[in-house]
């Protein structure tokens, strides 16, 4: 059940592959992916976006302000 | 005889180890050797370069000041620096698995070695640096192959025979690659 006006975003450039969001996600929708960013880190990705409940826990635990739930416009 | 070497790569590519292996080999052969390293403000990651001067007499100037006889470039980010830091008459060994765009510099010889690819073939991308080491030895004769093999044996022989095996192969492969590429 997702809030209509919200969406999940990942800022790949900022991600450092630390995996904290992966651990924190209650729905196990996240995983470290294969794509490297400019800093040389594998970017986290939503492997099951449809399961994401937009709870925002990933945002809270991310030490690099690289992920979160925003208003969709 | 003095040989100025530069080993560059980004974090985890083992350029510092490469430098250290040369140092240890040089010591085994009774040569003088000095290693310097660039260091940034941070503890963390980033590119790094190890400079090694090997000589049969006292090393006054311990620096490699844009006069490297041989430079190893493991990653694209430091490729330009390696090229600029080479002496006229020097040699740049570039890891062509990652460094896809190269340019010419007058008076500098460049040899492309697909080190990372070879390393993967040999079992781990981590031994790309050793592939490069084989090429360096063949190109410069700065040290005997036997010496470096001994150093590798000292380092991992007893505890990690499989690792040693892979690295010895990498060394040999690097030499062969240089020979064929440099033709």
């Amino acid at each position, binding site marked *: 059940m997702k809030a209509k006006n919200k969406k999940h975003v990942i800022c790949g450039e900022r991600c450092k592959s630390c995996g904290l969001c992966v651990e924190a996600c209650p729905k196990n929708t996240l995983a470290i992916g294969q794509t490297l960013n400019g800093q040389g880190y594998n970017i986290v990705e939503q492997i099951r976006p449809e399961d994401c409940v937009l709870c925002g826990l990933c945002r809270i635990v991310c030490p690099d302000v690289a992920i979160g739930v925003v208003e969709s416009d | 005889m003095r040989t100025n070497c530069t080993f560059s790569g980004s974090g985890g590519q083992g350029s510092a180890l490469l430098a250290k292996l040369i140092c240890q080999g040089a010591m085994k052969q009774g040569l*003088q050797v000095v*290693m310097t*390293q660039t*260091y940034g*403000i941070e503890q963390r990651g980033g590119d790094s370069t190890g400079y090694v001067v090997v000589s049969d007499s006292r090393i006054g100037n*311990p620096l490699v000041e844009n006069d490297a006889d041989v430079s190893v470039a493991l990653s694209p980010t430091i490729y330009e620096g390696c090229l600029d830091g080479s002496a006229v008459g020097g040699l740049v060994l570039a890891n062509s698995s990652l460094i896809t765009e190269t340019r010419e510099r007058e008076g500098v010889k460049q040899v492309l070695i697909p080190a990372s690819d070879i390393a993967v073939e040999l079992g781990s991308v981590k031994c790309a640096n050793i592939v490069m080491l084989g090429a360096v030895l063949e190109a410069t004769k700065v040290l005997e192959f036997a010496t470096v093999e001994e150093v590798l044996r000292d380092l991992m022989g007893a505890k990690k025979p499989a690792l040693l095996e892979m690295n010895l192969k990498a060394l040999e492969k690097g030499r062969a690659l240089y020979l064929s590429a440099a033709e």
Partner: protein
Amino acid sequence: MVVRRNVIRYSLAVDEKKRSNLKTIASESYMKSETLFLKNAQTFAEAMVRCGVRYHFAYPITPATEVMKHTSVILPQYGGRMVQMESELAVANALAGCACTGTLGATSTSGPGMSLMQETISYMAGGELPCIMLDAMRVGPGDGDIVGAQSNYFQATRGGGHGDYRVIVLAPASGQEIVDIMPEAVKLAYTYRTPVLFVIDGVTCTMTESANFPEPHDYASEFDTSSWAFTGTGDHPKRYLLTGSYTHSQGEELNNHLLAKYERIKEEEQRWEEIQVDDADVVLVAFGIHGRMGQDLVSNMRADGKKVGLIRPISLWPFPDKAFEKLPESVKSMLVVEMNHGQMLDDVRLAVNGRLPVHFLGKTGGDMPLCTLAEMTAKINTLL
């Protein structure tokens, strides 16, 4: 050759049954004279420990931290200890306390830490307390940059602290020289009862090279400190280290006493290396890494038929004035090269006293924080 490692046992003279917060375990081990390939900061650590330093007080700071990392491993093997204090201020004062027992302690730091120690260095000089210090120089001012520099020359040689005092300042230019000069440093510290300060630029400190270590020898314990150490009135009448409860005349006497000592040191302890000055047209004056590069510079330029000589001060205080006293007629000018904006320059100008033009080339900071051999050579070519 295998020799027995000098082991100093360390224990608390208290009821053995009680717990002691101080006990350290001295392990016996063996070691030989050997060649080690180390960062020069580690070489510094090894050298001082092998010469008898058993207490190293320190606070982390790049590029000096390597020293304490190394001593924290090796000192316990010698029955000593690396004591990490809460700040450089505390470090310097603990070092003073250690010295008061007649025991040679050491510390290692860099610019900001050196500045914080100035009050206590003044105190140790005034109190005539021996110790070994290392300033692994980095770029100032302020917190600065961790790359190497030589910009603490003034601070080291003129006493950055208050008062008319000096400390002996040594500037080895390689790992081997660190090893070779360390016994001297211990001797100087005890003979003149003074802090001995090594100043080594950060580039040299972080450089890895090999050095031959002779058999360890506890020089530090060869000096009799019983005539002055504050070890308790068991074997001497009351003694005290005077600083706050001066009378005016005691202050004057102390200063005169120090002055006389400093004159003696100036007379007897100048150290430098000199290469082909005899017939030189231009003499390069540089210490530490630039001095070492100067060795190559001279041979390269001589090979080109250019008459260049080198004076490499090894003791920065006392400054080797004597090296400049009888410069040959041939010398037309001097070039001072430093990793700063001109500090030793003053001493060279004072030594030369207007007899010759003294030129300068210097630099502080940057990715290449020193003058390259090419730059030095180019500059000298303009002077020939």
